[in-house]
């Protein structure tokens, strides 16, 4: 029973990574994003579910979460706990400025053949489908953990590089921008409007970068929380302009889930043919 849960959990996580359009959404929900002084905590829920921010499916693992402090150092989680539907943890926000908290992942996934047998990379021993290796009652799946382990005589090598990040931003006193310093790799946010100073009667402007260059025509989904209490989700499907800038109008104040995704053929791993990138953030939009 427990093993099958793990299988399902890893499958749904892999699915979320592989296709960000999938309905299951990974989300982080902070108790607040704005704090006065440096003696406060933020407490965060983390889960995977369809509706925002309603935990009813699987928790995210707090072990995946990293804390980036305003000065670039790594902070720590306190009181992590994993429940049936969501996990929770605290972060002591003891330095002024903007903190970044979340998950960041880069992996290569795919398949190849050796002597006619199908092998997988990064699949975590997932069943491969009816009759294939790992199918119920069949042989255990053949898998390797890294690109380096693919044997020299492998054929039909099909690899995809997957990069994803899911963040919240918390500011004590005046906001700073050090946590947004671009690395020039993959899909990144270069905010024009700081994510911790959004107000419902002002447009939010966010520039997205791919490999450090403006990501024109990027598809971005913006979803307000509390769908349960409305007829429809009221998600906005938006696209960045030629300058990579996304303009967002907020229909109401509240917590919003923002997800951008892109696919191209410029993976950093040479043997991969495709790169899938996703950027996710939960932001707080205040009433004016």
């Amino acid at each position, binding site marked *: 029973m427990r093993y099958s849960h793990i299988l399902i959990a890893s499958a749904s996580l892999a699915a979320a990574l592989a296709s960000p359009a999938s309905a299951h959404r990974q989300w982080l929900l902070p108790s607040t994003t704005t704090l006065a002084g440096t003696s406060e905590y933020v407490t965060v829920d983390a889960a995977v579910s369809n509706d925002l921010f309603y935990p009813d499916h699987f928790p995210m693992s707090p072990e995946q979460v990293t804390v980036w402090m305003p000065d670039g150092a790594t902070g720590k989680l306190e009181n992590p706990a994993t429940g049936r539907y969501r996990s929770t943890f605290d972060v002591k926000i003891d330095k002024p400025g903007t903190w970044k908290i979340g998950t960041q992942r880069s992996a290569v996934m795919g398949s190849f053949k050796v002597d006619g047998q199908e092998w997988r990379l990064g699949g975590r021993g997932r069943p491969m489908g009816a009759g294939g290796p790992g199918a119920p009652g069949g042989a255990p799946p053949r898998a390797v953990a890294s690109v380096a382990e693919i044997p020299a005589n492998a054929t039909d090598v099909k690899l995809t590089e997957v990069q994803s990040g899911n963040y919240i931003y918390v500011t004590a006193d*005046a906001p700073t921008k050090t946590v947004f310093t671009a690395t020039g790799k993959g899909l990144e946010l270069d905010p024009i409007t700081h994510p911790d100073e959004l107000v419902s009667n002002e447009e939010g402007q966010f520039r997205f970068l791919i490999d450090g260059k403006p990501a024109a025509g990027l598809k971005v989904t913006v979803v307000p929380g509390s769908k349960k209490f409305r007829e429809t989700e009221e998600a906005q499907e938006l696209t960045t302009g030629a300058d990579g800038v996304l303009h967002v109008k907020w229909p109401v104040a509240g917590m919003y889930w923002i997800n951008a995704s892109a696919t191209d053929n410029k993976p950093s791993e040479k043997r991969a043919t495709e790169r899938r990138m996703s950027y996710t953030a939960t932001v707080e939009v205040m009433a004016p």
Partner: protein
Amino acid sequence: MTTSKVLPALPLLAPLVAAGTIASPAAAATVSVTIPRINVAEYHRPYVVGWLEPIAGGTARTVFVWYDVKKAGREPGTKWLADLRTWWRKGGRSMQLPADGVSGATRAPGTYQVALPSNLPAGQYVFKVEAARETGGRELVSVPVTVPVKKGGSASGSAELGAVTIR
């Protein structure tokens, strides 16, 4: 002095301008803020802040901020300053508190007079007063004002703030 050049174009305004100049030499304008009495079982004095925003844009200037300056217990009274959310974003978050001549303890219901800073550059401003109360609500009241103040202004809140009058 320079007003005399404007006189031919604005004959009707001239007496007002002249009277205003005589009545209030050098600034010395005050703002009065009313904290209403609210009949609830659990009442806490509100955090209240008043600040000036230049209409043309630029840095907001905090004129007063009343909060729990000497709060006892584990948590400092500054913790809830962010609940004055508009002021916090407009500049409260970069202030060092307590600030001499600006910050003070929370006030009981009543009407209070606060002098506007005498060294304000001339121009058009909006005076904003924001109040937030524990277990209560939050309200923002705005009064446009031209400095030097010749003609005052007034606006009123509906729940957490009473009249805000500049004269």
